[in-house]
């Protein structure tokens, strides 16, 4: 079983962080993982994306050109990557920021108003983790124990106070129905 995620959005939305959490989550579940950021001369506000591969067997290419799961947190990302998603794959969209619908009818789509949910809950920087919560729920991987273990690794000791609010963001995403 190989899962190929592509996280994409603006710089500053926590795209790389969300990918990193997903990688640690895979690790704590005993899988092989790889995380590869796009890197370039972008500045804050530019585009950011990262490839995450989670696999039972050793991982070949860490580059995700054709994701089975796309996370698009802004319109340019959806425009750029919509066509690359594998047939039967899944797209998660921050519908607060992306106003259009997905054009394809051969993929599953979840529209989550993640930025709005984040603002309403007093966690304006955690729209990324709200979407991740929804992904885990949809994939049947919302296992609180391994989530906590992964969060413990990805939230540095210096920012330990952010652990609970990240966990809450994941729970908000997981319980969002819409």
């Amino acid at each position: 079983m190989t899962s190929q995620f592509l996280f994409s959005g603006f710089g500053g939305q926590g795209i790389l962080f969300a990918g990193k959490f997903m990688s640690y989550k895979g690790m704590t579940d005993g899988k092989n993982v790889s995380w590869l950021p796009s890197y370039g001369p972008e500045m804050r506000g530019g585009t950011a994306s990262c490839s995450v591969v989670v696999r039972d067997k050793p991982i070949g290419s860490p580059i995700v050109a054709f994701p089975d799961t796309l996370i698009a947190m802004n319109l340019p990302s959806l425009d750029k990557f919509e066509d690359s998603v594998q047939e039967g794959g899944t797209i998660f969209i921050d519908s607060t920021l992306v106003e259009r619908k997905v054009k394809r009818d051969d993929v599953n789509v979840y529209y989550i108003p993640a930025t709005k949910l984040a603002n309403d809950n007093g966690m304006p920087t955690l729209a990324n983790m709200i979407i991740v919560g929804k992904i885990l729920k949809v994939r049947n991987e919302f296992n609180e124990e391994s989530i906590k273990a992964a969060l413990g690794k990805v939230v540095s000791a210096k920012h330990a106070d952010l652990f609970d609010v990240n966990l809450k963001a994941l729970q908000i995403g997981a319980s969002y129905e819409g």
Partner: protein
Amino acid sequence: MADKVLMKGNEAIAEAAIIAGCRHYFGYPITPQTEVAAYMAKKMPKIGGTFLQAESEIAAISMVYGVSSAGYRVMTSSSSPGISLKQEGISYLAGSDLPALIVNVQRGGPGLGGIQPSQSDYFQATKGGGHGDYHLIVLAPASVQEMAELTIKGFDLADKYRMPTMLLADGTMGQMMEPVSLDEYSDIKTFDKPWATNGTKMNREHNITNSLSLVPEELEQLNIARYERYKIVEENETMYEEYYMDDAEICIAAFGIAARVSLHAVEKARKEGIKVGMIRPITLWPFPSAPFKKAAPHLKHIMSVELSMGQMIEDVKLACECCCPVTLCNRVGGMIPDPLQVLERIKEVNKEVNG
């Protein structure tokens, strides 16, 4: 099981160097390897080491020469254009028989090129980028774990054979994160360095490290002796890995990130019943000619997958001595082939050789 942490390839190099006992790092920032310097800047002051951002790449490699002469483990890192600048110092290190680890996290060239991954410094690394007759030991990691392992191995080989070693990675390997375990490398080898210029303490002759030798008869002998040593390296230190080669009719040759992409394609092709395998050189110099020479008479085709216009392919052709056709599958300029692109080529080749 040892606890694993997620690390970027660049960070793994830096941490492994510290584990290997390297306490002196000199560099100059350049994408995509700057995390090596950043990690060293953070860690070295805490463990009594030296981190120094030099005024240029040439200054940094010259500082490496100085510390190596004094008998300490030392490292510098850069990316392609910066490595070109270091070539003078690298040739001097080789000419003075000094150990050091030089890391090249390659990006597209020539010139300033781009900042995306490439393997187009293969010739420069393996055939001598600087002047004169010399070789570097060149190590090509294909995972973040190997970035760490080969860094430690690189220091050992450099000390053992008194020659500079190069870790030849690329932007992908430097930027990607994978789980790494470094716990098992607590037992680090040390090497006597009776040649080190670390003070006579008034009880021996002065040691001198020098690459200047104005008497042709003497310089000739120095070169011959150095190549005798290279021969021992070739006999003892060649490393490679084989995948699905037992019954292979088609063989892929690839290193580093190209090997990762290719292995993905090989696995897919195997599922479709195509008899394809792969040989992954881990040392690029010395080049693992033996497995290619052994396999070539039984193969119908070899395909060299590279992020260059075809550099390693020359060594592959030499190794298999015209026993079988060798072709190139490549992307350049910072582009990386998709596994499906490599798979398509494998299928085309399979159709050609098996009808």
